[in-house]
């Protein structure tokens, strides 16, 4: 059902081919700008906060790929507030498809896929340049961390969407968690203040998107001194985030009473 609705939106977008083409290219470029910023940063310094360019690009690649995948599938979930305000959510509720699927497929255009391209390219560029000791475990960690990261971001999308059942106007602020989280995880936490890193580990578990697994791949000590087991905890954290998101979404939907007049 998800695929059918997504395909419908793709066909709608294809009615304006010039616009669609520009949109895919430009969306890829916007995602790529962050990588370009990293390259420009390292044009001025060999190493920043103890990390070299290819290591930061590796973090960027895994974070951006996870985020782009989750954004592809669920990114419009945080538009729920608009539907609540406009009353269009009521129409979705009478249709025989989950409102989450309807919101998530809305305006599903190939532009979302455009985000994947620079992320995948940068990851492919950074991986062979890492000075890592490539054991089978480390190699297997790469797809695993992207999958877990995608699941964590997907859970966050649904959670911020669910928050809009309770506070319709929260969309502007929760972007700090989704887009802000995607941006934060592109850089090594050694750049940030300790409290920010603690918040991004224990409150919003962003550190498990790519940082903790990356510590394993790069074989580095953890600046927060967490046990080694934390490096393998990403899939478990992803499961927990998704479960919490599902609960939040159901609670929100149950509470929804439509708008007045």
């Amino acid at each position, binding site marked *: 059902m998800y695929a059918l609705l997504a395909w419908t939106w793709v066909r709608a977008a294809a009615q304006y081919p010039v616009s669609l083409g520009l949109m895919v290219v430009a969306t890829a470029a916007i995602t790529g700008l962050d990588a370009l910023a990293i390259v420009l940063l390292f044009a001025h310094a060999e*190493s920043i906060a103890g990390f070299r360019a290819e290591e930061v690009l590796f973090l960027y690649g895994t974070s951006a790929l996870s985020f782009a995948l989750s954004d592809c599938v669920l990114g419009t979930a945080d538009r729920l507030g608009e539907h609540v305000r406009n009353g269009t959510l009521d129409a979705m509720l009478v249709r025989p498809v989950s409102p989450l699927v309807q919101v998530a497929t809305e305006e599903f255009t190939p*532009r979302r896929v455009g985000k994947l391209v620079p992320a995948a390219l940068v990851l492919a560029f950074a991986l062979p340049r890492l000075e890592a000791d490539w054991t089978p475990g480390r190699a297997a960690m790469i797809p695993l961390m992207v999958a877990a990261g995608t699941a964590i971001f997907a859970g966050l999308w649904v959670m911020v969407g669910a928050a809009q059942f309770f506070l319709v106007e929260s969309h502007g602020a929760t*972007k700090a968690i989704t887009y802000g989280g995607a941006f934060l995880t592109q850089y090594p936490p050694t750049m940030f203040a300790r409290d920010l890193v603690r918040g991004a580990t224990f409150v919003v578990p962003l550190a498990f998107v790519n940082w903790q697994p990356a510590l394993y791949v790069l074989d580095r000590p953890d600046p927060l001194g967490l046990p080694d087991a934390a490096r393998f905890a990403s899939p478990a954290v992803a499961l927990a985030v998704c479960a919490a998101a599902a609960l939040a979404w159901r609670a929100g939907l149950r509470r929804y009473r439509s708008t007045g007049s």
Partner: protein
Amino acid sequence: MGVLPWVCLYGYRRHTAYPLASVAEAVTNTVFGFIRAYVLLALWDARPGLGGYDAADAVTFCFLTQALIGPVQIFGGMELSRRIRDGDVAIDLHRPVGLQAWWLADDLGRAAAALLLRGGPPLLAGALVFPFRWPGPAASAAFAVSLVLAFLVGFALRYLVALGAFWLHDDRGLSTVATVMSLFFSGMILPLVVFPGAFGDVAAALPWSALVQVPADVWLGRGAGADVAAALAFQAGWAALLLACGALLTRAARRKLVVHGG
């Protein structure tokens, strides 16, 4: 002429009608300000004095960009493009004032509202936590002028993009391309002083630098009086040129438009 101040006022009132939503946006701007500030601090820690900025300049720059995202609308978009797509623009074209002047007045109202609701929080938060540079009285006055010119350039760029919908019928592609340009060449992603060599010179000469980089340099008090005057003239020149392009394109669009009635 008489109607335009009212358009501006109503634009302002429309955009201050939901203050909570704007404050929520300001929260996100502030969070991004913090993340970017730490990244810049790490760079300036490795390379003190890069591009003629010290660490306090870089941090101030970073929070200024976040404070200006809303007012100069870096991410683009204008209600006009939707009205062109669904034909409501026909009503706008019947008004007794020019299309560009009407929307400019509306957009200045919006910019004032965004400045009021979204400008303060990132700056205050940044000033509380990081070393920060407030402008002196002269720099403040110059910054106020520079800000208005930045609004004009920002409007003129977005207006040209919106008019593209007359020909493409769907402005989203063009507007995403415009967002790439304004994000990167305004100094939003990184200050333009970090861009290397000739690339940096070209970036500084493009109109997008008038949106964030130039007002920020005026705020930071870079250069003597003559430099500030040159910076303001640079902004005013781009504003005049782009608004003139907008006027020409509006005339072309008038000839192009066919409204299907029903």
